C-alpha cells in the first residue's frame, strides 16, 4: 500500500479549486491552500480575500518585484487587480467572522469525525500561532481543509477526537487529502472520492473513525 499513488501538493490544490463557484469570495491559508489560486476553473470569476485587509488582489509577484505595501497573509507580495479593495483589520474580520466569505481553505494537522479542526500547534513544539485561523474556521460559510491523510509516521490525521490543540469545533465541511475527499456531515464522515488506485477500504484503514462510503464514491475528479 505504501507504493500507491498519492496526490502531490499541486494536485490537492487543483482538487480544492474545483470547489470554487462563480462569484465566490474565498480566503486561502498559507501552504497548499494558496496554491489553489492558480487553478480556478476556466470561466469562473473568484474573488480572494486575505485577512491582512485586501480583497480581489491579483497573482503573487515574481521574486524581487512587488510592492511591500501589498502582501497576502503569507507576506508574499501580490499584484493589484481591477476591483481590489483594502481595509483595516477590524473590517477584515468583520468580513470573516460575519459569514461574508463563501469559502475558507486551510491546512490542518487533525480533523475529527465531528468536523473539529486542529491546525495551529503541534504538541511537540508546544508553541504555535493562532493567527486568523480560529476566526476563519468559525466565520466562513464553508470550511475546506487540505492536508495529508496521515502523519509522517503513518498515523491517521482523520481522528475520532483531536489530540492536538483545537482551532475550532464542528467547523470543517470538506476535507481534501492526498488520498481522499471526505464530506463532514451530521451523520458522520462521507467518503466521496479516492485517489487513483485506492479503494475505500484502503482509505478506511488509514482513517480512525468509520467512514460512510458514498454510494457514488469514485476516483478523485480533477477537471
Amino acid at each position, binding site marked *: 500500500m505504501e507504493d500507491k499513488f498519492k496526490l502531490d501538493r499541486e494536485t490537492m490544490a487543483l482538487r480544492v479549486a474545483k470547489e470554487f463557484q462563480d462569484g465566490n*469570495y474565498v480566503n486561502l491559508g498559507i501552504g497548499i491552500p494558496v496554491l489553489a489560486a492558480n487553478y480556478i476553473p476556466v470561466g469562473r*470569476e473568484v*474573488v480572494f480575500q486575505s485577512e491582512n485587509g*485586501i*480583497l*480581489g488582489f491579483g497573482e503573487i509577484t515574481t521574486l524581487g518585484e512587488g510592492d511591500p505595501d501589498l502582501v497576502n497573509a503569507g507576506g508574499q507580495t501580490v499584484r493589484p*487587480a481591477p476591483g481590489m479593495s483594502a481595509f483595516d483589520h477590524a473590517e477584515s474580520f468583520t468580513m470573516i467572522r460575519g459569514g*461574508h*466569505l463563501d469559502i475558507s481553505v486551510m491546512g490542518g494537522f487533525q480533523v475529527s469525525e465531528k468536523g473539529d479542526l486542529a491546525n495551529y500547534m503541534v504538541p511537540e513544539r508546544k508553541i504555535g500561532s493562532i493567527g486568523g485561523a480560529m476566526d476563519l474556521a468559525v466565520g466562513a460559510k464553508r470550511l475546506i481543509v487540505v492536508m495529508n491523510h496521515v502523519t509522517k509516521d503513518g498515523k491517521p490525521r482523520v481522528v475520532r477526537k483531536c489530540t492536538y490543540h483545537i482551532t475550532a469545533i464542528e467547523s470543517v465541511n470538506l476535507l481534501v487529502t492526498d488520498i481522499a475527499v471526505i464530506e463532514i456531515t451530521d451523520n458522520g464522515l462521507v467518503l466521496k472520492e479516492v485517489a487513483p488506485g485506492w479503494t475505500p477500504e484502503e482509505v478506511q484503514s488509514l482513517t480512525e473513525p468509520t467512514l460512510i462510503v458514498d454510494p457514488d464514491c469514485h476516483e478523485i475528479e480533477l477537471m
Partner: protein
Amino acid sequence: MPINKIMPSFDEAVADIPDGATIMIGGFGTVASTASLLLEALVRKGVKNLTTVSNSCGFGKDVWKLMGAKFPEDMDVLVRNNCIKKAIASAPVSAVYQNNFEKKLRAGEVELEMVPQGTLAERIRAAKAGLGGVYTPVGTGTAVEEGKETKIIDGKKYILELPIKADFALIKAHKADRWGNLVYRYSSRTFNGTMAGAAKVTIAEVDEIVELGELAPDEIHTPGIYVDRLVVRPEKYEEADEAEISQDAKESHEKYLERKSA
C-alpha cells in the same frame, strides 16, 4: 462568468422582498442619503407589515421638493402607504414637524423601538460582524435600559445590546463597479456604509456605475463582498403621484428657513 451585480430595474431589485420582511434603510434622514427609488419600488410592489431599521422615519417628499431635491421620496413613502408594522429607529419624529410616522404612532397604527443612535449603529455592525452582542455604557439609568441585561465591567455599568438582523438593506451610494464596490459622498456615507453587508441581502442605489478598476483600492468605502445588487438612478425622475405640496410641508419649510437664518 464575470460577476455582475447590476440589476436592470428598481422593481427587479426588490422583487423578492416579501411581506413581513425586516429591512434596513440607509441614510441619516436627509433625502440625499436615502435610497429613494428603491423605496418607491417597494411601495409599487405593495409590500406589507415591514419591520424597518433606520435612523429616522421620513419627512415626506414635499419637504424635500421645497429644498430642491431631484429624487424627493424618503422613508415616508413606506409610512404613508401603510407598508410598515414596526420601526426600529433613533430619531423617528421631528421637533419642528409632525411627520406621518408620528401621526400613525399616535393613532396606534405602527410600533416603535427607539434606540440611541450609536447603539443602533453598533447593533447593526454586530450583525454584520457576527458578534453575539456588545456592552455599551449608553442608556444606563434611562428608559433604554428597561428589560435589558446589564453588567458591571471594570467598575462601570454597561447594557448588553444585541445584533439587529435584517433580511434586506436598501442603501444609497455615489459610485459603484460591477463587483459592488462602493464609494459614498461626504455625509451621505452615514448609515449606508454601516448597513452595507449587515442584512442577508444588500441592495445599493447609486448615482453612477464605473468600470471595474476605476475605483482605487484605497478609496473604496464598502468592499463589494458586502453588496449583492446594484441599481443606477435614471437621468430623469418620474413622479408616481403628482400632487400639490401640502400646507404642513410649506409651514415646516418656513420654520426650517427661519432656523437656518437664525
